């Protein structure tokens, strides 16, 4: 027991903790319950168990097409964001250059810029340049917001790969490109997978930027939002939300678990802490 906290304090913390848990997860639990309620009105009383809302959405062509658009946008977004994040992360971790703090600020800025602002400014930009709106313009918007996350996932992994490994590879006769292909890239794979999955979920969930940029081919969140105007559609929208929720949770948990395990393995294998790596890079002596 932590002696720094009194019994009364512990009790208070306990209550606050459970309040938070209920506050966060009760809506999700209710969502799951109502997706199986045999009633078109989303409220109690419980009128019996059904899976018809799930059957209904599977047979809804507009919904399936929106899903397809979202999958396309999310896949392209993850590929582009991850590919761009690799050189960005390498530059931030391995290179020393002028105004590095400023550059990293610029790269990570989309994290704090309101999505509405980003969406509108991109919309104005595309109109001004004359680019017609399509799922591809939405991809551009999503890459902007997903890339900071992809970079942030890769940086710590890269910091744990000793620069000496890359130097050893060069020393043994490999060019910079061969070194990336045979040493850096294989060791970076777990972080690449994480970055890919996180970019994917960000894009798949995204409503604001999509609604500005996607044009007339709605993505899935845009479609769901539009369906809220029709009360009779609500139960099947909820059913879809539950499916998405379950799939997202599985993907995120799996990717984080994978990253954690491989991180531990790398550490055990190189037997090196981050500060050793720093001193190696500085070329002590």
């Amino acid at each position: 027991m932590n002696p720094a906290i009194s019994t009364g304090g512990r009790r208070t913390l306990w209550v606050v903790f459970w309040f938070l848990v209920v506050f966060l997860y009760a809506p999700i639990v209710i969502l799951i319950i109502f997706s199986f309620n045999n009633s078109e009105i989303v409220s109690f009383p419980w009128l019996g168990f059904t899976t018809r809302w799930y059957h209904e959405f599977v047979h809804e062509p507009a919904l399936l097409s929106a899903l397809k658009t979202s999958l396309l946008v999310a896949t392209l977004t993850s590929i582009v964001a991850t590919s761009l994040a690799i050189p960005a992360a390498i530059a931030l971790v391995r290179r020393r250059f002028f105004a590095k703090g400023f550059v990293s600020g610029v790269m990570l800025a989309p994290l704090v810029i309101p999505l509405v602002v980003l969406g509108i400014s991109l919309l104005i930009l595309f109109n001004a340049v004359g680019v017609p709106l399509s799922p591809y313009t939405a991809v551009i918007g999503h890459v902007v917001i997903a890339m900071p996350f992809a970079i942030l996932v890769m940086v710590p992994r890269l910091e744990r790969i000793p620069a000496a490994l890359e130097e050893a590879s060069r020393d043994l006769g490999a060019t910079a490109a061969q070194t990336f292909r045979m040493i850096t890239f294989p060791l970076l794979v777990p972080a690449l997978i994480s970055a890919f999955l996180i970019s994917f979920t960000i894009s798949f969930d995204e409503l604001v930027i999509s609604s500005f940029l996607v044009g007339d081919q709605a993505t899935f969140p845009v479609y769901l939002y539009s369906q809220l105007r029709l009360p009779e559609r609500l139960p099947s929208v909820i059913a879809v939300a539950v499916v998405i929720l379950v799939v997202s949770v599985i993907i995120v948990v799996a990717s984080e678990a994978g990253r954690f395990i491989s991180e531990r393995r790398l550490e055990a294998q190189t037997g090196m802490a981050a500060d050793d790596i720093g001193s190696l890079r500085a070329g002590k002596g």
Partner: protein
Amino acid sequence: MSDTMSDPTTAAISIRGVTKRFGEVTAVDDLSIDIREGEFLTLLGPSGCGKTTTMRMVAGFEEPDEGDILLRGEEVVGVPPNKRHVNMCFQNYALFPHMDVQQNIEYGLKLRKVGKEDRARKVEEMLSIVRLEGYEHRRPGQLSGGQQQRVALARALVNEPAALLLDEPLGALDVKLRKQMQLELKRIQHELATTFVYVTHDQEEALSMSDRIAVMNEGVVEHLGSPRDVYERPATPFVADFVGVLNAAELAVTSVDGDRAVLTINDKDHVVAPATGHDLAAGTMALVTVRPERIAITRGAAEANGGSRLSGTVAQVVYLGTLTQFHVETSAGKTFVVHQLSTEGSEAIDARDDVTLTWPVEDSAILRVGADATSP
């Protein structure tokens, strides 16, 4: 340092007037060394003396601001590390964690497009030289520190480099393993007759393994010579101090008698030192030094027998196992350290005892002359 400049055409590595600056700091300052084919040369110095930077410039990870580096007579400044025929053993081994021992060792051979069978044969040969037969398919994470060290050696040596560069390779090992690996390294170097350039801050390691030692300080080589030379005839006070414990005192020369100088302290005590190579006259100040193990310590009074004699009081006795160390406050005004084999006789001397220190003429050395001579 007459042996700095040997014939560069026969040198494995020739470093000529190399300077390297990091911003305001000059890490290496107009450094010149010729490293002979097949020799074991150690760059010895405290951290920050430029020894690692020098090695990294030879390997190609840093480029000098001034000067030339030649590998077997060919200029390599500006050549990327992968095109230089030297290999390096990194401080923390830098084994590739996602490859097994065999893949690690054959990495360089693969890049040079050596055939599969040749690779396997060479890896096997190397593993037997470093005594790791049967470890081909282990991952680095499954090996002990000493074993990883051997793999790192094999991975570098399998490429038959013009020189092997070792950057404090034993730093991460415990003392016992380190001693063992020192002998192993020496054996391997002897077996393959490869030029080894070894970087360390451990003077014992340097003395026990090297053919020649370059003692570095603040970016320059202060002394380049054999271990015996560096230890017994250090060129500068820094070298003397860094390569072993050193007793030093600044005294006035009272007379010069042919090849020996006498520095009298009082009617009983004086230091006698070889005077050759120094411009000495009565009255000049000189920094005289003597190694702790050269001094004989006697309880009470003793005769100088033509050598040096200092009286003093024992301040502290430290038992070190084989040796016993005495800290003696001497009439020269400095505390001298004396090492004596721990025999029964050394037990007789205790703290606060009055003692006499004596040593022969040739064990004194005058390291610096002039009024500004301050002890190291």
